[in-house]
């Protein structure tokens, strides 16, 4: 139980692509304001679990790793540009990426691991990463904070480009 929980909790935290994407979802939600600030973190775990379920039952997701790398680029650009999109468009973008991230969690879950503990661990860690993103995104209420957030978005987008490069050429 304990090792499954720890493994699950550390899974999103030790993969930089997952970590940056989850935090970016929170920041972007905070930038968009209500209702996105609370709708994205509520919807994301559910859609991610749907992707995870697909991975567990063995449904393949072609280009899943590329989609994860692209999610970091796209979310980084959206945060850097503070792009305001309609809520359903935002949900669709985040939803597609959530399925890719969830699928990776489902596929990478070790057969021997305590499945329930692993799932609780990664769902809670993901939620806490969103919360961290929202806390960072609150900086947008200060003029200098907006600059910091946009710079963070730029750094995330560059890191995403590195992930895409790593996927495509290495």
């Amino acid at each position, binding site marked *: 139980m304990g090792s499954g929980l720890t493994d699950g909790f550390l899974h999103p935290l030790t993969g930089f692509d997952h970590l940056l994407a989850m935090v970016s979802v929170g920041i972007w939600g905070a930038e968009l304001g209500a209702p996105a600030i609370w709708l994205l973190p509520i919807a994301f*775990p559910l859609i991610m679990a749907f992707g995870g379920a697909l991975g567990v039952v063995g449904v393949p997701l072609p280009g899943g790793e590329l989609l994860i790398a692209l999610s970091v680029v796209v979310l980084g650009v959206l945060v850097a540009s503070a792009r305001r999109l309609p809520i359903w468009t935002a949900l669709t973008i985040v939803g597609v990426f959530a399925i890719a991230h969830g699928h990776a969690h489902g596929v990478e879950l070790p057969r021997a691991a305590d*499945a329930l503990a692993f799932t609780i661990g990664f769902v809670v860690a993901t939620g806490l990463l969103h919360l961290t993103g929202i806390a960072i995104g609150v900086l947008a209420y200060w003029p200098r904070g907006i600059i910091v957030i946009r710079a963070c978005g730029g750094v995330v987008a560059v890191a995403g480009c590195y992930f895409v490069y790593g996927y495509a050429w290495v």
Partner: protein
Amino acid sequence: MPGCERVIRAPRLTAIVSSLAVCLNPATANAHTALLGIGGFWSGVAHLLTSPDQLVLLLGLAIWTSFQNMRLDARVIGTCFLAVLAGAWVGAGMIARTGLSLAPAGAALMLAVGLAGAMRLRVGAVPLISLALAAGLACGAASVDAAADVSVALFSLGGSVAAASVLSYGLLAARRLESEWGGVARRAGASWIAAIGLMMLAFSVSGHAGWG
């Protein structure tokens, strides 16, 4: 008056010294022996409190109930108490013989209460009580494999008390989060529970080694 203070303090000091003397008096260790004969009760309590799937389901039910009329709280807790009690008996009588796995049912209920809470679904008494009944029955019946060497009556009673306590404390905590952001936190928590339920359902379908 210093004299009065001494009069008041003297009995207090005597009581403290006497209590310490009683505590420090060497005697036979009675750890656990006093619970002989009601071990099944504590097994029931401990089993529910150490079963994360049942805890998550009950917390999900508490979150969803917190979005309903407060008058329904007691009925949900009471229904769950009786359902866990009945579930353990049903499990002992039927499921223990047939070897039926309740993991998919528990996962589906987790998904249902999580989704209902995440959507802040407001319903009447009947659907809420029905789901509380189903959740209690599932918790009780799923626990029965741990009651092999103990009295089912005491085990189920312990499970019922623990389930009612978890629901009560969960509701107490959730009802305190009545602010706008508190509501968001409850919905996010319910969405986590639905996500866990969905994954559990997938594990049940795929026959994952670490579940079921």
